[in-house]
């Protein structure tokens, strides 16, 4: 599709899924602009107007484009398998999951950009998945053809990590195993800022977590601050322990 800054000749000409990328029409920066109101200096808006306009135009064009998506890293067969894994990591149930968020397109793009270092994990991981499948379910041809229950069972065997809190780090660490890489990429593609070029399509990831897409908010923000009377000094009795 236009505007992604990738030479069309480098793309593989396949379209895997029937739905079209809808992109971030609800989340364009035009909305940001319209919400700024008086809180922002006019000089700042003036200084940023060209960039803001360009971003909004890009978003609109992308949303209106009817061109099917083409994968750049995956073959369509590979994309089907990764998509099937992602769809078990964040399944589609009563709310949209990884599939509706377009996570597969995010991962495809990630592997040619910020996550290019993870290409070997995918190249080696997919055959491993196939081997595990052949061992466990000899009658099933492909992971994507297995039932969700079979898929979950297989993925459990590939998920070596324990459910322990990890020491929190500021930066997104690179993951170690194939499953962990796909897990981190799936979560990233599901929850990334919907204004980004790929992932969190339609903002479905943020809808799940109740993260409104606006750039400006006014108090009260939540349940506990809505009746807050304003800060008062502590009553004398409570002053000293």
């Amino acid at each position, binding site marked *: 599709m236009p505007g992604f800054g990738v030479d069309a000749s480098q793309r593989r000409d396949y379209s895997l899924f029937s739905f079209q990328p809808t992109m971030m029409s609800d989340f364009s920066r035009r909305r940001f602009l319209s919400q*700024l109101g008086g*809180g*922002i*200096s006019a000089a*700042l808006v003036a*200084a*940023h107007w060209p*960039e803001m306009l360009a971003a909004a135009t890009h978003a609109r064009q992308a949303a209106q484009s009817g061109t099917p998506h083409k994968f750049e890293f995956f073959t369509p067969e590979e994309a089907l398998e990764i998509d099937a894994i992602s769809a*078990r*990591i*964040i*399944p589609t*149930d009563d*709310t949209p999951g990884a599939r509706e968020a377009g996570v597969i397109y995010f991962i495809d793009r*990630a592997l040619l950009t*910020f996550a290019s270092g993870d290409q070997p994990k995918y190249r080696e991981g997919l055959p491993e998945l196939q081997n595990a499948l052949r061992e466990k379910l000899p009658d099933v041809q492909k992971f994507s053809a297995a039932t969700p229950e079979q898929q*979950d069972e297989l993925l459990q065997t590939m998920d070596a*990590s324990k*459910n*322990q*809190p*990890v*020491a*929190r*780090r*500021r*930066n*997104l660490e690179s993951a170690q195993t194939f499953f962990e890489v796909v*897990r*981190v990429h*799936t*979560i*990233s593609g599901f*929850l*990334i*800022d919907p*204004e*980004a070029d790929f992932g969190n399509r339609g903002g479905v*990831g*943020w809808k*799940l*977590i*109740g*993260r*409104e897409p606006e*750039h*400006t*908010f*006014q*108090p*009260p*923000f*939540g*349940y*506990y*601050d809505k009746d*807050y009377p304003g*800060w008062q000094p*502590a009553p004398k009795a409570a*002053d000293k322990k």
Partner: protein
Amino acid sequence: MNVAQPKYKTSDEVDFLIIGSGAAGGILAKELSTNGFRVVVLEQGPYLTEADYTHNEIKILGEDLLTNHPKLQPTTFRKTPQDKAKQQRALVYGRSVGGTSVHFTANFWRFHEIDFIERSKVGAIPGANLVDWPIRYADLEPYYTKVEWEIGVSGQAGASPFDPPRSRPYPMPPLPVKSSGVIFERAARQLGWNPFPAPMAILSQPRAGRSACVNCGFCLGFGCEVGAKSSSLVAAIRFAEKTGRCEIRPDSYVHRIETDARGRAIGAAYFDKEKNTHLQKAKAVIVCANGAETPRLLLMSADPQFPNGLANSSGVVGKNLMLNSGAIALGVFEHPLNDYKGYAVSRILHDFYELDPQKVGFCGGGGLDARFDATPIGFALNNMPPGSPRWGSSFKKILGDNFPRTMEVFSHATSLAREDNSFSLDPDLKDAWGLPALRMTYRDHPDDLKIATWLNARALELLDAAGAKQKWNYPIVEQEFAVHLLGTCRMGNDAKTSVIDTDHRTHDVKNLFLCDGSSLVTSGRGQPTMTIEALAFRAADRITALAKRGEISA
């Protein structure tokens, strides 16, 4: 970028060459150019502005758009000088114009009087190199006030009974409280503690051509798209540029301070974006490159005249590194807090700032704050309750329930200086420019782990009192990753045990000054940037006075 800024030739001997455009460098640039001096600021990172900042977690946190880059600038780590260091990411700091102040949390409370005189009060601590500052809180008070009014800090004077004396109230009221702040305040009062509105370097009202905070929610780790966060870029550098005497030169990576036969600094050699080298001449050099890069630069500037590194006759350059200890407790509540809206910290308490070592059995102190600084991807990967499923429908359910209902009680506390804790040059590893990589040697003093554990227990008590449905804490472990970079070129009166004097002038080189986190003598109780900026304002006054008396070039 201001088009009015001058373009000096590298052969122009400018009055001051400032290395680093962060919290300290930005303020020194503003003050010295305002005072009439010709200033060049060399910043290793790019010149990014509001238009470049984004809410994209991958770009900002994953690809290090605003921070030092682990691939270009690899680092090594070891626990003790006896160990061989292993390559691992050891630190993060801001790497664009404005430095770390672009992406900081903006906690801006002052150090207390105790932080300057703790050694005299508690005595020697085994295994720690704890000393008093050569200056006192009272020396810095006017400059703390200057930071609040000139850089822009929101807060409420007198709200904390533990606050040190101040000469002026805050210029702006506190930012609006968040649900985490209300929960924290009510629970803390139940426990008899004294919560107060967190002083933040974020505008609660429009000021000096900058917007008030719009509560966008991408604050810690991110650049402010509306200029409300008081980075040195928006609050100082733009004013420096307006003087017409200050040139900000981005993409300029300094690798050596050059000296003449008399042992005086003549300027600094740096790589430009294309890795060509230049030498910018100056009458005096001020290094504000942060507590890791400042000592590294001095050590890389060794020559036959200064075999142990520049300004390092004491041998303490790079040593006495302090990181601040900390601990995290998380709680999940019944109703949505929506704490993703707004800045990070709205309430804080300092009841435990000064603990009696005889009673608690360790030296240290600190505070608690109510915060939410997780962004969506980071939350899903790191902030789910222990034992939660990591994928699948139940993961998705908990993720959706918890994101708007979770808050954090963060403990911020002392680090005791230890001589073995340091930044030095790795003997083997090089960065992308062929320069020696930073090697961090660090092991928390046992008391640092004790204060972190002690405060974390108070945080869990608070979450209990608040009625959290679920609460947990992260294990307290020895730190191997540095965010606050403090103490590595400490200030002192004795040239044998410190690197700079109270004017920030190096004891060894008369026209070389250092001002940043490396200048600190103690770590405070966390959140050092306010103090770094107060030091920078004070240093600017001292350096201006020295220059006017002709005592720098003489």
